[in-house]
C-alpha cells in the first residue's frame, strides 16, 4: 500500500459538472439570504416613500425651503432648510477636524511610533470606536459644552470678523453647531483612523522601498509612496466617518439647543439636524407629523447617497493611477 493513490483512470462521463450537496446547500442559502435582504430593503423603501409622499403632498408650506418644523401650528409647517443646513455644516466641521488628525494618527502608528507604542495606541482607538454614541452625547453635554467657553471667546475675539466665528451673545451656552461638529469629529475619529491605518499597513513594502532607495526621508516616503497609495482608502474611510456624522442622533440631540434659524454664526446656539429633529419631535407627533418626519429622514438618506456617489467618483477618476495594476 502506498500512501498516495495511483491516479485512477476517470470513467468517461458526460460533460456535466458535479454538484455536491454542500455546494447546493450553500448556494441555496446565499441566494436565499440575498433575495431576502433585497425584499426587506424594497419593503422598507416602499413603506417610507409612501408615507413620505402622503405627508409632503398634504403639506401647505414648501417642504424644502421652509425654516420651521412645527406640528403645533394650524396648519402645521414642515420645513427642512434649517435641518439640512445644520446637518451638513456640523458634518463638514467634523470632517475638517477629524480627517487630518485621523490620517496623522494612522501615519504615526504605522511609521513613527515604536512597534509597541503603536500597538497600544491602535488598541485604545479600537476601544474608542466601540463606545456607544449616547456616552459621547452625555460627555459632550456635561463636559464639552461648559469647557468650550474659552475657545469660543477666543475665536470670537480674534476671528469674529469672519462672521462664522462671530458669537452674537457671548454669554449664550456653547450648544452650537460648532460644538456639535467638534463632538462629531471626536466620535468619527476612531473609525477613520482605524480604516486608514489598515489601508496603510497593507501597502506592499516594495512601494516604500522605491522611495527609500532614492534617498527619501521618512516624510518624503510618506508623500511619495504612502499617501498616494492610501488615498482612495482614506477617502473611503472618511466617507464611513461622514456617514456616521450625518446620521448621528443622540450626541447631537444632547448638545445642540435647537432653534429654527439658519445662521452663519456657527458659535451661536442655533439650528438643528435631521436626526436630532426626528428624535425630538417623534414622540409628540401625530400620524401626519410622523409621516413628515419620515420624509425628512428620506432627504437625509438621499444626502448620504449623494455624498457616497461623489466619493466613488473621486476614487474612480484616478483609477488609472491607482496601485491596482502595478
Amino acid at each position, binding site marked *: 500500500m502506498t500512501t498516495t493513490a495511483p491516479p485512477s483512470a476517470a470513467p468517461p462521463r458526460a460533460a456535466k459538472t458535479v454538484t455536491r450537496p454542500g455546494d447546493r446547500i450553500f448556494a441555496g442559502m446565499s441566494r436565499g439570504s440575498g433575495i431576502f435582504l433585497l425584499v426587506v430593503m424594497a419593503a422598507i423603501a416602499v413603506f417610507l416613500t409612501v408615507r413620505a409622499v402622503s405627508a409632503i403632498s398634504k403639506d401647505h408650506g414648501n417642504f424644502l425651503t421652509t425654516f420651521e418644523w412645527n406640528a403645533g401650528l394650524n396648519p402645521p409647517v414642515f420645513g427642512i432648510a434649517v435641518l439640512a443646513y445644520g446637518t451638513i455644516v456640523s458634518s463638514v466641521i467634523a470632517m475638517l477636524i477629524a480627517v487630518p488628525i485621523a490620517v496623522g494618527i494612522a501615519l504615526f502608528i504605522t511609521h513613527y511610533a515604536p512597534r509597541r507604542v503603536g500597538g497600544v495606541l491602535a488598541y485604545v482607538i479600537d476601544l474608542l470606536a466601540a463606545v456607544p454614541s449616547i456616552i459621547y452625547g452625555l460627555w459632550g453635554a456635561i463636559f464639552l459644552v461648559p469647557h468650550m467657553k474659552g475657545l469660543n471667546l477666543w475665536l470670537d475675539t480674534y476671528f469674529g470678523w469672519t462672521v462664522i466665528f462671530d458669537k452674537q451673545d457671548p454669554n449664550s451656552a456653547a450648544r452650537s453647531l460648532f460644538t456639535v461638529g467638534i463632538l462629531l469629529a471626536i466620535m468619527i475619529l476612531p473609525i477613520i483612523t482605524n480604516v486608514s491605518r489598515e489601508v496603510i499597513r497593507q501597502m506592499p513594502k516594495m*512601494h516604500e522601498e*522605491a522611495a527609500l*532607495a*532614492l*534617498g527619501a526621508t521618512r516624510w518624503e516616503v510618506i508623500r511619495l509612496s504612502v499617501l498616494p497609495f492610501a488615498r482612495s482608502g482614506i477617502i473611503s474611510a472618511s466617507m464611513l466617518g461622514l456617514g456616521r456624522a450625518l446620521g448621528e442622533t443622540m450626541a447631537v440631540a444632547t448638545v445642540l439647543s435647537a432653534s429654527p434659524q439658519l445662521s452663519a454664526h456657527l458659535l451661536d446656539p442655533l439650528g438643528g439636524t435631521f436626526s436630532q429633529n426626528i428624535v425630538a419631535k417623534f414622540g409628540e407627533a401625530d400620524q401626519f407629523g410622523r409621516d413628515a418626519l419620515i420624509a425628512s429622514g428620506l432627504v437625509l438618506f438621499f444626502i448620504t447617497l449623494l455624498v457616497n456617489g461623489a466619493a466613488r467618483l473621486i476614487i474612480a477618476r484616478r483609477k*488609472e493611477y*491607482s496601485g491596482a495594476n502595478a
Partner: protein
Amino acid sequence: MAKRIDVSGLTAFYGGFKAIEDISMTVEPRTVTAFIGPSGCGKSTFLRTLNRMHEVTPGGRVEGKVMLDDENLYGSGVDPVTVRRTVGMVFQRPNPFPTMSIYDNVAAGLKLNGVRKKGELDSIVEKSLKGANLWNEVKDRLNKPGSGLSGGQQQRLCIARAIAVEPQVLLMDEPCSALDPISTLAIEDLIGELKTRFTIVIVTHNMQQAARVSDRTAFFNLAAVGQPGKLIEIDDTERIFSNPSVQATEDYISGRFG
C-alpha cells in the same frame, strides 16, 4: 563619478538571526560584479547593506565596514538618506510609483535633491530615459501613469529613475527575474552601456546572465539552513566559470547542487 566599494568584515543580522557573516570584497569602479549562490544564502541581504537599506527591515543590523572610496558608509554621523542618494537600487519586481506619470517617476529623485527648474528636469528626464533605452517607447506618453507600462518597460523605467540622480553605484537585485527573454536582453545590453558611467553590482540566479554581463563574479553559499551565508570566492567571471578555485563553486555552476 563611479566609486570603488571596499567591504571588510561585514556581518548582518535580522534580529537575533545572523544572515551573512564576515564578508570582505572589493568592487572596482566602472565594472559589473555579479552575485550568485543558492537561494537564502544572503545575496539580497548583502546587497542591501551596500546602500544601508538593510536597516530599514525591523531588526536589521550590520557590523563591519563598507568604504565608498574613502568614506565609511557605516561611520558615525553618516546619514543613510545621503548614502541612498549616492548608491542607487533597482529591485526584483519593478516598482514604479503607481500614482505617478512616467515623467514624474523619473523626476522623483531629482525633486528630492532639490532640482526644480522645468528645463533642467526635462533634459535630465530625457537623458535618463534614453540611458535606460526607454525613450523611444514612451516619449509620446510621458504624462501617462508608469504603472501602465509592460513589466520590462516598468523595470527600465525604474532603472531610468535610479540613474537620473547620477548615483556612484547602481545595485540591482535580480532585475530580470520577472521579465521575458527579450526584455531581459534589453536590460543586459543596458547594463553593458551603464558600466561606462557607474559601478554596478547585480544579483542573479541566471548563470548565463552572470557570464554575459559581469566582469567579476562572487559566489555565496551557506553551510546549512539557519547558518549564516558566506562569500566563498570572488574572481574574474571568466575564471569563475572556467576554473574556479573552490570545489563548491564548480559544483554550483555545473548544477550539481543548489
